[in-house]
């Protein structure tokens, strides 16, 4: 691990953005984003209708794209100062990501999907006391994935199970930040509430900050902070 991705002191800011602006090529109006300040261990609910740039903001936060103006500081590191490869490493070391659907590499077992970040990041591996398998099994247990499915192809799982495996992958190795892009939109109400509760409980245990994006306002009360995208901030 290099200096750029060194662990910041705890209690500090997990995410800080200032005057973020992004313009897609060939598009006239730039997307403007509200400033975000999120302390470590706190959770943020981002609400926004389609087309308000939710995914763009997540891409900026994940360091997969760079803003036109403004700065994204994660764990007091300015992402714009990092090169592409360093941003990939930063993401592998400090971030977990949950998508709306199709979260899992289809040719890996559930267990291999969960341990994937530990194979890309030494830091995440070390956080599991050097034993990603055990950590992954513990997480899958906590997320109540039946043991019979652990070594099976993930394509045999229900969507709810797949989302929980994705949550386990985001949580393994206790990254500081988890980005969740509408992870519950494919779930029914029961599953949805259970998923969010589990995710938040485990995030608390692992001291992760969650940025949760959804268009469903009813989920907002689970989170410490909330922001709306599009229009006023």
């Amino acid at each position, binding site marked *: 691990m290099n200096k750029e991705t060194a662990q910041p002191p705890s209690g500090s800011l997990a995410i800080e953005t200032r005057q973020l602006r992004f313009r897609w090529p060939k598009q006239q109006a730039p997307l403007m984003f509200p400033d975000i300040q999120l302390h470590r261990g706190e959770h943020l609910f981002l609400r926004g209708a*389609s087309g308000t740039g939710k*995914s*763009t903001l*997540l891409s900026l936060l994940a360091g997969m794209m760079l803003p036109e103006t403004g700065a994204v500081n994660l764990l007091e590191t300015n992402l714009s100062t990092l090169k*592409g490869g360093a941003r990939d490493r930063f993401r592998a070391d400090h971030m977990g990501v949950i998508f709306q659907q*199709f979260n899992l590499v289809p040719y890996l077992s559930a267990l*291999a999907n969960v341990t994937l970040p530990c194979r890309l990041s030494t830091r995440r591996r070390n956080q599991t006391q050097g034993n990603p398998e055990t950590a992954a099994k513990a997480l899958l247990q906590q997320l109540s994935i039946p043991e019979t499915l652990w070594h099976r192809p993930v394509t045999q799982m229900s969507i709810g199970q797949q989302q929980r495996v994705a949550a386990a992958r985001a949580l393994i190795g206790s990254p500081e930040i988890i980005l969740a892009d509408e992870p519950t939109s494919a779930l029914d109400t029961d599953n949805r509430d259970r998923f969010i509760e589990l995710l938040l409980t485990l995030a608390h245990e692992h001291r992760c900050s969650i940025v949760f994006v959804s268009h469903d306002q009813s989920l907002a009360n689970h989170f410490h902070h909330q922001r709306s995208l599009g229009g006023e901030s």
Partner: protein
Amino acid sequence: MSKLRLTLSLATASLWYRRRVLAMVCLTLTLSVTLLLGIQYLRTEVRQSFTSTISGTDLIVGARSGQLNLLLYTVFHIGDATNNIRWSSFKHIEDDPRVNWAVPISLGDSYQGYRVVGTNGRFLERFQHGNDQPLKLAQGQWFSQLFDVTLGAEVARQLQHQLGDQIVLSHGGGRTSFSNHADLPFRVSGILQATGTPIDQAVYISLEAMEAMHVGWESGVAIPGRTLSASSAEARSFTPDAITAILLGLKNPIMTFQLQRELSQFPGEPLSAILPGVALSELWRMMGQFEQVLLGISVFVVATSLIGLIAVLLTIQSQRHREVAILRAVGTPPSLIAGLYSLECVLLALASCGFSLFIGAALIASLSPWLLTHYGIHIGLRALNPDEWLLLSMVPVVAFAVSLAPAWHHWRKSRTLSFGNNNPNQPDFKGDTLHGARAMTMR
């Protein structure tokens, strides 16, 4: 190092996951590589067995003619001699101090389409093929009585002759002959082991028997009353007037060219002497064009299957954008994703090479005894030579080269891949987004 291990394990898992589609591609590639390797292997083998049809003989002497003609009728039993050599010339050459041994050969008759070779005991001792392998008898002995005949392996197999069978030789060449030496039947005294050379396709009798058969045949047909009966023939001794060719072994091979030149200017009669090795390679050069073309075709077959492989991988690629997005999101660098692509291609090629080696070896091992007994072609299992290894190793190398185009495409694309990109002004990213479909329906 751990990155490489990760790439390798992801590549193998991905290949295994797509095994049903890829099995067909792998099969195509395996078959074409087997074809390529097989042709190269057979080329080497056939060339080897062809150019060693005769060995240990320094010079072949015949009546004045071209070297290919002389080679064809003496060794391959194709075509006819232009003229004979006088027995006195043979004696003269045999007595030359530089000559170690001389084997006379007399041709002209046939048995069921197979050539009858009149010679003597030295033929068995001196004639060699392959890597200086001598002739061996599978059964019985080399002819010793006047009307004994020794059969080549193929003749005995085709005509199902046993030791002691009586056979009737025909006058002149051809499969069906109307003038048979019916009054002088021969007894099969021995059968030679298969050699995979034209030796297998001839029958061998003594020069004396050749003479005895032709007493009374001076005009070309048997004149009644002048031919011999078996008992009266055995009572006489025969010295041939003329023979067709001579195989020479020299005491010192350095003298070969000198003797060759002298024989070409032989004062007694016009003769030609050839070096069998030189003549064989010249003959091979003429026939070799064909196998070059064959090899060229098989190279194209392999190229076609590699292009098919790329086509299939490109088709799969469009189904892989989700997987790439996930890998990118967990922090996989674009280089690893491009590497995954190339590695899968190379692994597939390596698997095909492995399979084709196995198939090739199994085919040769199982077919080689059958080929030898049914066609007299000797093709043994041997280790690949450097040329063949080179040809085989070109397959994964070329596979890697052709994988670079899609790998580069992947690398470039995955570098700019964003989260759920639902921007309609980004046609380049359509289908790459995780939310593309949802964005469409909600708009």
